[in-house]
């Protein structure tokens, strides 16, 4: 399971790639593995406001529906339209072509609430220990 070092992560298993004040957001390799085969995804549309810790959409897999929880606050400036054609890229390429939304971040200080790759890997280990 990979957690690239150039990303930061939320405890709700979202990854964030920061470029200036733009955050690109997706789900982690751990999340897609836990979900199993993903069937559908629905994302809030462009220009929607999102809040850190609040939903920005939902995913349905064969096993479960989950709310997608935003790791940052701001306005959605772009949505990955390719997911509508091939939701399978969330399973096969969750860190790259499987990105979900880009957000114009309102408060970069909120990033302090997120985890670096090493801390996220530890967190995932804790989650597994509970199992």
């Amino acid at each position: 399971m990979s957690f690239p070092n150039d990303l930061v992560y939320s405890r709700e298993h979202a990854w964030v790639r920061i470029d200036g004040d733009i955050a690109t957001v997706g789900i982690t390799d751990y999340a897609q593995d836990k979900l199993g085969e993903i069937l559908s995804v629905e994302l809030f549309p462009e220009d929607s406001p999102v809040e850190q810790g609040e939903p920005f959409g939902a995913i349905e897999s064969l096993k479960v529906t989950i709310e997608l929880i935003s790791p940052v606050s701001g306005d959605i400036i772009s949505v990955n339209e390719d997911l509508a054609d091939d939701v399978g890229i969330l399973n096969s390429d969750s860190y790259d072509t499987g990105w979900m939304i880009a957000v114009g971040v309102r408060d970069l200080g909120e990033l302090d609430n997120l985890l670096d790759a090493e801390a996220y890997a530890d967190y995932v280990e804790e989650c597994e220990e509970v199992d």
Partner: protein
Amino acid sequence: MEEWRIIPLEHFDSFENMAIDEAIFRIGRQREMPPTLRFYGWKRPAVSLGYFQDAEREINCGYCRDRGIDIVRRPTGGRAVLHGDDLTYSLVAGENSPHFFSDIVETYRIISECIIRGLEKSGVEAEMAEEGRAGSGSAEAFCFAASYRNELLADGKKICGSAQVRAKGMFLQHGSLLMDFDPVAVCAAIITKDTEAEVKALESSVTSIRKSVGDNVGIDTLCRNIAAGFEEVLNIRLIEGELSPEEETLRDSLLENKYRNARWNMGRGAKSGH
């Protein structure tokens, strides 16, 4: 011994039922609430849609309207269920609470064991589906047209369908246990290509409490037995309770702003926000 809240069987309309479950789920994740098991019935027949289903494409909306069948979208995923002759349960718990797991399939398995114990007490021999059975034909939009691992079968036929939603470390699981089953009504309410063939397919793949044990087990007895199943399998005590004032307030707001709103029920979920 760990104590859970149980909200005993009551009948509400479909919109109220979904608003109550979502209120318990959302308040539960803000507070350190004990897990809550709730049983309910349906004042009026209703089709509940899975979160991602498209009402116009999968449900015979005109038929439902003409016969006073509500259409409501669930917060949980999965496929459509025709409610009326079923006992529905909801379970809200933290995914890391002592008896549950962040592993989704394992959670289904544990809850299934509790229900199987309750069904045994009711004279119904049930088992978990070891392997999935794919849906066949055009009734695939219907929950009971397919079974997945860890769902419940009696006499090899599906008797209980379940679906889950997870957010922020909590899960809400819905399940529908069929007291009686009318494949003709199901095929009329759900869009099918070949109704006659679908009725036959459902007759041979779906069963009900009444089919299994006749009229010997009523809905109240079934609730008691399933509650006992949870207590025995998980070694917990269920304490009768009701909604908190906070949950009631949220229920009322969800009713007005979401579940009595056609935009939520007939549209697709996340785009409208919550």
